[in-house]
C-alpha cells in the first residue's frame, strides 16, 4: 500500500459509518480508529507520530500532546532558545496556558469536513481526549490533551498550517491549583 492508497483508504474510512478498521497486508498492519474512541497511549510528551514514516503505518494514529511543560511552558528543551517566541505564550493571566503543536503540519479542528469540531470555547476536556488533528506527510495525527482542562480559545483557524511549538489552544487546567 502506498501513500496515495493510504490516503484514499483514510478518506473512505472517514466517510463510512464504522468506528474502526484493521487491515493486514504483506506483514504490515494498518489500524484506523474513529476519533472519539481513540486513545493510543501517549508517549512521554514526545510525538512518535511518523518517526518511521514509510514502514510504520500502523503508528499513524498517535495521540500526542505537547511536551509536559504546560505549567512552565519554557522549561526543558525550549529553555535553550532564550527568546520566548510566539510558541511559548505562557501563563498569561488567570492561570491560562497554551497547548502547542507537537509537529509541523496542517491543523484540523474536526475529524472530517462538515463535522463539528472536536472542541470549542467553554468545553471541558479530559486527559487523553482528542482535541484536534495535525496532518503531516498526509497522515492524520490526533492530538490529545495531556491534562484535564477547559478550552478558553482556539488560537488557529481550521486548515491553517502550523509550525512546531505553535500555540493551538488557550486552556485553563482543571487540576492546576
Amino acid at each position, binding site marked *: 500500500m502506498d501513500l496515495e492508497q493510504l490516503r484514499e483508504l483514510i478518506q473512505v474510512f472517514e466517510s463510512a459509518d464504522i468506528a474502526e478498521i484493521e487491515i493486514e497486508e504483506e506483514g504490515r498492519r494498518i489500524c484506523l480508529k474513529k476519533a472519539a474512541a481513540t486513545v493510543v497511549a501517549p508517549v512521554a510528551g*514526545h510525538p512518535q507520530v511518523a518517526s518511521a514514516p514509510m514502514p510504520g503505518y500502523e503508528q499513524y494514529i498517535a495521540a500526542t500532546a505537547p511536551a509536559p511543560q504546560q505549567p512552565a511552558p519554557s522549561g526543558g528543551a525550549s529553555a535553550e532558545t532564550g527568546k520566548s517566541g510566539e*510558541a511559548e505564550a505562557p501563563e498569561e493571566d488567570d492561570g491560562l496556558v497554551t497547548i502547542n503543536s507537537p509537529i509541523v*503540519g496542517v491543523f484540523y479542528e474536526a475529524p472530517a469536513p462538515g463535522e463539528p469540531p472536536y472542541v470549542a470555547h467553554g468545553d471541558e476536556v479530559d486527559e487523553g481526549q482528542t482535541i484536534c488533528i495535525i496532518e503531516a506527510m498526509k497522515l492524520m495525527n490526533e492530538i490529545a490533551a495531556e491534562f484535564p482542562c477547559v478550552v478558553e480559545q482556539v488560537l488557529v483557524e481550521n486548515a491553517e*498550517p502550523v*509550525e*512546531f511549538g505553535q500555540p493551538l489552544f488557550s486552556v485553563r487546567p482543571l487540576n492546576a491549583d
Partner: protein
Amino acid sequence: MFRRILIANRGEIAVRIIRACRELGVTSIAVYSQADRDSLHTSLADESICIGPPPATKSYLHIPSIIAAAEVCDAHAVHPGYGFLSESAKFAEICRECNIGFIGPSPEAISLSGDKAACRATVKGAGVPVVPGSEGLIRNADEAVAIAQQIGFPVLVKASAGGGGKGMRIAHNDVALKNAVSMAASEAEAAFGDSGVYLEKFVENSRHIEFQIMADAQGKVMSLGERECTIQRRHQKIIEETPSAVMTPELRAAMSEAAIKATRAMNYCNAGTAEFLLAPDGQFYFIEFNARIQVEHPVTEEVTGFDLVKEQIRIASGAPLSLPTIEPVGAAIEARIYSEDPDNNFAPSVGVVKRCHLPGGPGVRIDTHLFEGYDVPRYYDPLQAKIIAWGQDREEAISRLANALDEFTVEGIKTTAGLCARIVRSDRFRRGDLSSDMVNEFVG
C-alpha cells in the same frame, strides 16, 4: 525551474543556498529548530518555519517534519546542503514519492556511494584504479591476513558504511590485523548498524585529492578540477586548496578522466566529489565518492568563476549543464573556522558572539552565519565560518588568507582562526609539503 525551495539545513550552507535562490529569483524557505530561532538562515530566508526542538534528531534529521514543512509551505524542491539528510537515500526516496524535487543525486546513487565496498567495486569495474585490497567485504580475519600478505603491509581496515574515521583501523602485521578486523567491525556495528568491513593497502605519505564533478540528467559529466584536502585533524578537513601544489597538467587530465568514469559508472547526477589518494610515486587511487555539495566547494568556485549551488538547482530542475569550459584562473585556499579551543584539546566553545569583525579586501570571501549578538548553540556542527582567499598564484592566495585570518575577530567564543593562520604562514605550507598529521606541529 523550481519556484519555491525549502532548505533542509542550517548554518553557513543554508545561508549560501538562500543566496543562490535569491539570484535565481526562487523563493527560499528556511526550516529551523527552536535553538535556531534567531539564526541567520532563519531571518535571511524569504519564509521560515519551525520544525522541532533543538536536538537535530528531532528537527534537521527528522524526515517527517522536513517533509511536512515542505508540504505545508508548498515547496517544489528541497536542498539538503551537506551533512544532516544530504546523504540519506531514504530521505531522497521519500522526497521522490511525495513529488518533491531533491536537489542532489538519485536515491540509488546515494545508496551506492554510501556502500563503500560496492562503490569501490563498481568504480573498479569501470577501469578506474582503486587502492589494492579485498574484493568486497572481508568474511573473516584469516581471509584478511591472506589478502594482506598478498598486497603487503601496512593495511587499512575500513567500514563499508563508514565515515568520519569511525570503523577504520591500520595494521602493520598479522596479529594486529586480526585484532583490527574485529575492532573495526564492532565499531562499525555500533556507529552504523552495519559490521561490514573491507581491506585496503595503506598508502603511506599519500595526499588526499578530490575532484569536483557536475553531471546533468542528460548524461553530460564535467570535471571542475581538483582540491587538495590533505591537512586534516581527526579526519576533519581544515585547509583546502586548488590547484594542488603537486598537480601537473597530465596528472590532472588523467585524474579528471578517472573521476568522470567513476561518475558515469555510478549513474550519478548533480554535484559530487570523487576522492583519491595520490601516492608519492604519482600513482593515484579512487577511494570514495561524496554524494553532496561539499563544505570546500567555494575554492573551486573562486578559480572557475562558477556558482556550483545555482548549477545544482538548475540541474535538479531538469536543465542541462550550463557551465562553459573555462580554464581555472589563479589559486584559492579555504580555511575552516571551528568554534573550538585549540589550546584546550579542541574543546567545543559556545556562547554569545560579542564582537564580530569579518575581513575583506580583494580576493577574500567569507561564508558564515556569524553576526554580533549570535548565540552559538551547542547542538550542532562547530563549523562557524569559511574564509576563502583567491590570488593570481598560490603565494598571493596564501598571503591574503593569512592576513584575513589575522584580521578575523570574533569575541565570546574560541575559534581555530589563529591555528589556521600559523599553518598557512609556515614554511612547510608555503613549500606545499603537506601531510595529514601536520596540524599537530602547530598546536599549543
